[in-house]
């Protein structure tokens, strides 16, 4: 008894059309010769040239990448610690507070997180000025600190759910067999969560690269990230070079996702093969 779910297939087709038509339209119009962003005027690649010779955009992209690299790395370290804490320590003082602190930024409206960090940074800056006379400015440091704070909670969630579904008895067996705690950590726990650490880092990296609201609140003069630059450009109207930028972004992401998919498929197949071999040699 198998009947073709025609309605559901149609819904899928329309849904994917809805998701992809705007993106495809943007890609098509990035090769548009016309100055108008959405009226076709012949094929051209001039907007790519314009984009790559625009120093402001290149500088902003480099700044965004720097912030994303630093914040994703720190957030991954802190998030892994918090994830291990929440998944493996049954009882310690303030456990509920920590798990609350980890979930709150995930579901807090970004405007509130942004404004509270801005007020915090301004007050700290005034305090520093009063104490030492040094005038500090918001910029790279404050944006990075803010990004670490809210992306670490995403990493924590990923690590925690990976550890909760992993078998704790392997770690306990290693201890019973005389392994030292750090050996258990190095040889068992970290390898188990290493894919989760990688995907946590990637998520933190993209979140940081993509963030507008919190960056907008915590950044200062001279530190314009790529999203902030795009935002200020888009507010003034649609410009064709942004189409080119979008096309480049979409291509990079697509290639990345395809490669990640292939790599994951391979790893899975190898694991299956290993499991089969182990099963056979046991028989």
């Amino acid at each position: 008894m198998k009947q073709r779910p025609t309605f559901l297939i149609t819904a899928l087709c329309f849904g994917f059309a809805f998701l992809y038509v705007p993106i495809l339209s943007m890609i098509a119009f990035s090769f548009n010769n016309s100055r108008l962003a959405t009226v076709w005027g012949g094929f051209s690649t001039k907007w790519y040239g314009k984009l790559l010779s625009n120093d402001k955009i290149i500088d902003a992209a480099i700044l965004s990448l720097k912030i994303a690299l630093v914040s994703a790395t720190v957030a991954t370290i802190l998030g892994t610690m918090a994830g291990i804490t929440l998944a493996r320590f049954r009882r310690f003082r303030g456990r509920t507070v920590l798990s609350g602190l980890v979930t709150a930024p995930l579901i807090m409206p970004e405007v509130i997180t942004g404004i509270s960090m801005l007020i915090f940074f301004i007050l700290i800056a005034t305090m520093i000025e009063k104490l030492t006379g040094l005038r500090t400015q918001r910029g790279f440091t404050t944006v990075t600190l803010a990004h670490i704070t809210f992306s670490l909670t995403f990493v924590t969630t990923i690590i925690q759910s990976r550890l909760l579904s992993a078998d704790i008895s392997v770690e306990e067996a290693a201890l019973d067999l005389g392994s030292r705690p750090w050996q258990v950590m190095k040889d068992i726990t970290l390898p188990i969560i290493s894919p989760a650490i990688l995907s946590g880092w990637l998520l933190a990296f993209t979140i940081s690269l993509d963030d507008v609201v919190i960056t907008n609140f915590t950044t200062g003069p001279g530190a314009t990230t790529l999203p902030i630059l795009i935002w200020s450009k888009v507010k003034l109207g649609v410009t064709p070079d942004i189409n080119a930028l979008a096309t480049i972004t979409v291509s990079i992401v697509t290639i990345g996702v395809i490669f990640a998919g292939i790599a994951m498929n391979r790893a899975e197949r190898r694991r299956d093969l290993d499991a089969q071999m182990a099963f056979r040699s046991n028989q």
Partner: protein
Amino acid sequence: MRWFNIRGWSDVTIATPYLWLVIFFLIPFLIVVAMSFATRTTTSPPFSFGVTDNYLDFRNYARLFQDDLYIRAFLTSIKNAAMATFVCLLVGYPMALGLTRVSKSARNILLMLVILPFWTSFLLRVYAWIGLMGTNSWFNKLLTSAYNTLVPQAWELNSIHLMNTNFAVVLVTVYSYLPFMILPLYANLEKLDMTLNEAAMDLGSRPFRVFLDVTLPLSVPGIIAGGLLVFIPACGELVIPGLVGNPSNPMIGRVISDEFASARDWPMASAVAVALLILMVGPMMLYTYYDAKAQEKKAMEP
């Protein structure tokens, strides 16, 4: 776990992220709460406590109800967010259900296609719609000609006014948050026991009846999780209404940031933020509850 409780390892592992979150999340948040009871002054920073007779100043909260700007903004936000959540559900549910009914290899590719837009820039996706909704874009022309063939000649339009309306905000919000609806729904629907459907079919139910009686009730946790994941961020959304919304009918995110930046009224901005948070507490706790339950279930699985 015993292995961490040796040589202070555990203390470091617990304390580092803990301290970080307390310093950079909890303290700033408590400052905002305290700030909402302060009075605006012309000093720098522009607030102080104890200007009125009471140490706490409740006038900011009183203003929330007196000035209809705030109530209107809250209503607009809730209306737009609720509408977007509902449309997301209407579009996302059949998609999630469809994903569970295609072959395994097609499913992996389609799931990747759902997630892919999420990895590309959020801002650029909003931007794509700005291009499409403009009065001289091919999309707007297509919509206009479709509309013109349907209505009598007297009602014909040159172009449909899409930009800077609440409709545009809802449309772009649906577009941006659709993956957040599809993924939890899919995770939920995928685990459902198909034999229940078959049993209902064997007992003579028609497919739509099976859906109403079996699939829909079992997918309520997925609907709630997905709905909240769309509703909560959509309520506080700042970027989408800022770019495609109606500026004379602002949503609450805009009001908060305007109070802060343009009016330099930190206490009022904080009070509006706290009020938004109080409104969101119910939905947030509901989400945490369902999330914790899902995590528990996951931990129970072999």
